[in-house]
C-alpha cells in the first residue's frame, strides 16, 4: 500500500553523464517494494511530484536506490540535495513486474533511463536462479552505467546509438544474438518500446511505461493509455507502470 514516507538520503553519486545514483533509507518502502514500482517524490516549490523507478533495494540495510537523469528543473533540484537530507515520497507506487516461476530464461531490455528498474528486477530474477540476459541501450558512451552490475546477473549486451561503446545501433539490433528466452521485460523510451513489442510480437513480455502524472495514485486521469479491454484505458500510475505487452496499445 502506498504511504507518504520520509526517506533519508544516505549517498549520492554521479554514475554517468547527468545521471545520479541516490541511496535512500526507509524501512517500510525497502521491505515492501517490488521490482518495477516507483517512488513519487515531492520537491519543495514544485506543484507536482516526480515519478522515479526503484533501481535497487537492500532489505537488510533498509535502503532503496534510485537512478535518475537530470533533464529538467525537478531532477536538477533533486540532484542538488545532499546526503542527510530527508525527502518526502509517496510509495511504493504502481504495480511491479510479474514474475513467473516456471520461466528459466528471461531477457531484460532497458533503454537509457529505462535501465534502472531492470536492475532490481534482474537481481530478483537471478536470485531465483533464472538465466538473465540483458540488453542495455544508451545514446553514447558517456551515458553508460551499471554495466558491471548487469554483467554479474548474466550476459549483458551494451548498445550505443553512435557505436561509441559496445555495439552500434538500437537494442533491437542485437536480438538475433540473444537466442531463446521465455519472457522479456522492457523499459525505455516509447519509440524503443514500440519497436521492441513489434519485433517480439507473440512473445510473452512486460513493459514499463512513462507518462506525465498528476496525482500518481489513480485519481486524476492524467496518465491514461488506451487498452484492449472493455474499459478501454489503463492508468499508468496505478494499473501500471508495468503492463503485459499484449494488453495496451502503444
Amino acid at each position: 500500500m502506498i504511504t507518504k514516507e520520509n526517506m533519508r538520503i544516505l549517498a549520492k553519486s554521479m554514475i554517468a553523464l547527468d545521471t545520479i545514483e541516490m541511496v535512500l533509507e526507509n524501512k517500510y518502502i525497502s521491505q515492501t517494494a517490488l521490482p518495477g514500482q516507483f517512488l513519487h517524490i515531492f520537491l519543495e516549490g514544485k506543484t507536482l511530484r516526480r515519478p522515479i523507478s526503484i533501481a535497487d533495494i537492500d532489505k537488510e540495510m533498509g535502503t532503496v536506490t534510485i537512478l535518475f537523469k537530470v533533464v529538467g528543473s525537478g531532477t536538477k533540484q533533486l540532484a542538488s540535495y545532499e546526503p542527510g537530507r530527508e525527502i518526502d515520497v509517496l510509495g511504493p507506487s504502481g504495480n511491479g513486474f510479474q514474475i513467473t516461476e516456471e520461466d528459466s530464461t528471461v531477457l531484460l531490455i532497458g533503454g537509457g533511463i529505462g535501465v534502472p528498474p531492470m536492475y532490481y528486477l534482474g537481481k530478483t530474477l537471478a536470485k531465483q536462479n533464472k538465466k538473465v540476459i540483458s540488453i542495455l541501450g544508451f545514446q553514447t558512451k558517456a551515458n553508460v552505467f551499471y554495466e558491471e552490475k548487469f554483467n554479474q546477473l548474466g550476459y549483458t549486451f551494451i548498445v550505443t546509438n553512435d557505436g561509441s561503446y559496445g555495439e552500434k545501433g538500437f537494442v533491437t539490433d542485437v536480438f538475433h544474438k540473444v537466442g531463446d528466452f521465455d519472457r522479456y521485460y522492457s523499459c525505455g523510451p516509447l519509440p524503443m518500446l514500440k519497436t521492441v513489442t513489434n519485433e517480439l510480437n507473440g512473445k510473452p513480455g512486460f513493459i514499463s511505461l512513462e507518462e506525465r502524472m498528476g496525482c500518481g495514485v489513480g485519481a486524476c486521469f492524467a496518465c491514461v493509455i488506451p487498452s484492449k479491454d472493455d474499459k478501454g484505458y489503463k492508468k499508468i500510475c496505478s494499473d501500471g507502470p508495468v503492463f503485459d505487452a499484449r494488453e495496451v496499445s502503444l
Partner: protein
Amino acid sequence: MNKLAVNLPGLHLKNPIMPASGCFGFGREYSEFYDLSKLGAIMMKAATAEMRFGNGTPRVAETTAGMLNAIGLQNPGVKEIIENEVPFLANFDTNIIANIAGSTIEEYEMVAKMFNETNDVHALELNISCPNVKEGGIQFGTDPKMAAKVTSVVKEASNLPVYVKLSPNVPDITRMAKAVEEAGADGLSMINTLTGMQIDLRSKRPLLANKTGGLSGPAIKPVAIRMIYEVKQHVSIPIIGMGGVNTAEDVLEFLLAGASAVAVGTANFANPFVCSEIIDELPETLKKYGFDTALDAVGKAVME
C-alpha cells in the same frame, strides 16, 4: 458547538473543506490515506451522459506555482458512477456533490435527473466552465444566457440544490453570477481553471496533446479571490471558493473574500493529506486571526 460547521443549501457541512472536482477522482484512492468522513464534502469528478475517454496524453504540465490540465472530462459515464462510485462514497459520513458536464443542455438535464434519483447525492455542481473539451463546457460558461438556460433546465429536472461552477475566462464574472442566480442557482462554485498553454522547447509544440489546458494552483489564487470578492457584493446565494488553496491561511483568505466553503484541488497531488491537514489546522488559524467560527469570517473583507 462545532465551530467549523457551515450550512449551505442541501449541505450540512461539518467543516467548510472539500476536495475539488477532478482532483480527487471518486475518493477511492484518497480513502487509503485517511478517513473521508473527515471531509465537509466531496466533489466528484465530472460526470457526462456516456463514458468519455478524454483527450490524448500528455494531459498535464507543470507551470510555475501551478499546473495545466486537459483531461477532457474522462469519466465512466453517469450510470456507472451511480452504480459503482456513489455507493462507495455513501459509506462515508460526508456530503457528496456530483459535478456534471455536458455538450448539450439535454445532456446536463439527463445527468441531473439520474443523480436526482439516487438518494446519496446531496447537491449538484454544474461544470459550465471546462476549458478542455471541444464543444459545450466553456460556451455555457461565457455566455450569461446559455448559463441561465442550463441552470433553469437542471433546476426543473431535479430537486437537488444546484451550484453553478463559473469560468474565470470572462471579463465580467458578476454578470455570469447574477444570470445564474436569477435562473435559480442555489449557490456558486468558483473558480474553474484559466485557459493556458505551455510550449515544449524540445519538440517546439504545445506540450499538452490538447494544446491548451486549464491553469490551476497557487498561481491563480489572486484571480479567484478577486472574482469571489466581486461576486459576493452582488449575489445573495453562497459561494464555494477554490483556486490555489494549499493552507488553512489560504482557506481563511477565501472565507474573508466571501466564500462560505472552500475546495482544494491541485494541492492534493503534492500532498494527499492536504484536506485532512487543513481541517486540523483551521480552528487554530481562525483563532489566530480573531475568529471564533468559520462562519464569522465569511465575507468579512467585503463588508465595509
